[in-house]
């Protein structure tokens, strides 16, 4: 199994806490972390610094923050949905915001799910555990999205 989860998150604290929460809940799946939207697209389409890595795996799920440097979460989502290779890729928006406008935009541009990042650690732990179990183990991917190209 070469399953990976792509975590698009600019806050290193949140990166660390997310990975810690997964590990605490015995989710061992590899987590690839990118710090902004451009890097996320580079990884998914094999461009930029990932051009030299042809054998990158297609992630089982992308956890996408909305407020990101360079290219924002909603723009990343639109690019992914516009491309046949990532059209069906599960993208879960994982963000601090619970503004109506963010939720509406997320769904309008094709988010698979929208989960708010809780502030309380216990709730955060619970949310990440449920995400990991569901998207990495329970969810079935669309057939053609299993391989990179």
């Amino acid at each position, binding site marked *: 199994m070469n399953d990976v989860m792509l975590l698009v998150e600019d806050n290193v604290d*949140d990166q660390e806490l997310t990975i*810690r929460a997964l590990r605490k809940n015995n989710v061992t799946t590899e987590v690839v972390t990118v710090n902004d939207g451009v890097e996320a697209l580079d990884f998914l389409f094999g461009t930029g610094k990932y051009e030299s890595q042809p054998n990158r795996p297609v992630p089982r799920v992308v956890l996408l923050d909305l407020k990101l440097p360079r290219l924002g979460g909603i723009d990343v989502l639109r690019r992914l949905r516009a491309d046949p290779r990532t059209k069906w890729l599960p993208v879960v928006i994982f*963000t601090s*915001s619970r503004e*109506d406008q963010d939720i509406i935009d997320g769904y309008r541009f094709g988010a698979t799910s929208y989960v708010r990042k*809780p*502030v*309380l*650690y216990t709730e*955060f732990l619970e949310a990440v555990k449920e995400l990991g179990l569901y998207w990495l183990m329970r969810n079935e991917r669309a057939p053609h999205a299993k391989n990179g190209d």
Partner: protein
Amino acid sequence: MIAALLAAVIAIFAVAVFSEMRRQAEDQAADRARSASLQIAQLFDNGIRLQISQVNAAAADPVLRAATAQPTARTLAAARARLIELQRSSPIRDEIQLWSADGEQLLNVAAPDSTAVPHAARVRPNMGDGDSVSMSPMNVDSVAVWFDATAAVKDGERHQGYIVRRRRVGVTQSSGSAVQTINRLIGIEARFLLGHPETGWTDLLGPAAGPTNATATTGVVHTYAVDGKGRQVGHAEPIALTPWYVWVEFPHARVYGRSMDFLRRITIVGVGIALFGALVGWRISRHITLPLGALTKAATKMSAGDYEHSLGVERRDELGSLAAAFDRMAASVEEARAGLEEQVEQRTRELQATNERLSGSEQQFRSLASSSGAAIVTADANGKINFVNAAGEQMFGYASGELIGQPIATLMPPDDRATIEERTGRMMISGESGSHERTMEFTAQRKDGSEFPVELSLASWVVGGKRLTGGVIRDISERKTMQAALEQRARSLEDANKELAAFSYSVSHDLRAPLRGLQGFSEALLEDYGDKLDERGLDYLHRVSDAAGRMGQLIDELLELSRVSRTELRRQRIELAPLVMRHFEEMQRLDPDRKVAIRTHPVPPAIGDERLISLVIQNLIENAWKFTRQQPNALIEFGTDGSRDGFPVYYIRDNGAGFDPQYSEKLFGAFERLHAESEFPGTGVGLAIVQRIIQRHGGEIWADAALGQGATFHFTLGRLNVPASIES
């Protein structure tokens, strides 16, 4: 009637014949007068011509000229011999005189007969400057009727003296043969006069009354009255070479006698015929007029209101059927009359009421117009102002009455007139049905040329086929200014809201992440390194984690408050009691250890945004739940308590800790707390959110409480003012 007609015919005939006879008599009289006067004139004419030529010849005699130039005994004697010679050369022996130029009689050769007129010798001749012989007027004195023929004895052009030949034509107080001759000529009743209207007339026997203006009517038969002789008909004929007229006159009766006789006779005959005609006519017409008279009488009675009069004429001719028809008509008129009278009365009443209404509404209009603060202007079909109230004159800066008759366009700036009239025209067409009215705004112009914004309500109506247009004009300068200020306020408010939204958005994203880090890593520290810390270290770490947690909750609630202020409201029908129960059960689920009772009463449904109203109920239930913590028999009650401003007053009551009523003002302020956090935990934002939502619904919220005796929160939900399209 017939008699009158007959009389008229006879009268016309008589007048025609009479005037024809009269005209013929007049012509005859005129002919007689003319021929008589002409013949008499000629009688004189021959003698006068001879007389004139002899005088003329004598005037040129050198002997007479010498006598007048040098009147000595010798020249005068010679001259006398000449004059006697001259006298004898004519069959009529006239008196001949010689005068000097300065008016002295030089010689007088008297007429040879015994009836000489010595006194007349001294009458000085009257001679003009002309060459010809001058004829004097006909003179009458107590002795004779005479005249002079005078010629000048000249030396070159100078009058040196005069020779006068005086002729007698009649002798006073005698019937001379000449008069008898003339009377034979003209007839015995006729009268003959000689003379002139200005110098007098004579009948050759003495002076006589004659016409005073015969010359003006020469050749025309003239009728005039003479004292003692009645009316006379006369004719004047001038005698050549003299200033005299021959006047011949006849008594009027003599001339018109026959025509007057005829008139008398025809009148008698006419009256007789008329009387006879009248008698016969009366006999014939009686047969027809009697029933007609009855008919007329009946009709008169009928017009006076008596419809029950029957004629009772029974005849087989046209009059009989006429009478029968009349009787039938009378009956049906009587029938119709009753209904008609009622109708007339009804219409009269209606008309009276309408008049009263009209004069009432006219008065109403006048007093309304004069008391109105708005300008009221009406114009006729030609766009001329025919009424404007005092407010209108003041608004546009005109003196009283100055605007009447002015075109309505006077009230508009010249450049805008066409546009405004086009717009009002469109308005009138679109509102053509009845006196429909609408409003429009435009710029108006005062008398001094200054402009100001107005609002016009236009109405149009038709009176007596003429279209009138009326408008109510309001000066909206103030409104415009306020509107601009409001728009400015709205814009800045919108800017503030945008800023607030941007702020909330960044708070939502960026303020939470550090807190999560704080909380997360404190917990991670506790989990991984808890065994390496002592009691105090662990306590501190817990405090850091708790503080971060509370701050996270605070941020969440602040964002909630911000959201309920900004979010768009949706209108829905909401059943409040089930909502109360749902949140109550939620509290029971979260805090199953407590025993709290609930009592809900049926309440009318509310209109509002269900998500926000749910938030209100949730906060109030949580509140009640929280403050009854120390109450062993906790009870929460929900119901309605009367109404305020027409909306039901809902309440949620608890029997918990309550609060001091003097702080109830602070209750709904954000971050305001009336209890210690340690006693009743909370952020103090909850009730602020509740109040904000209630206010946004146009309602009110207030609380009654006493310390230790529970609290009651009352609220109303006003009319939610959102467009119906949002309704779900």
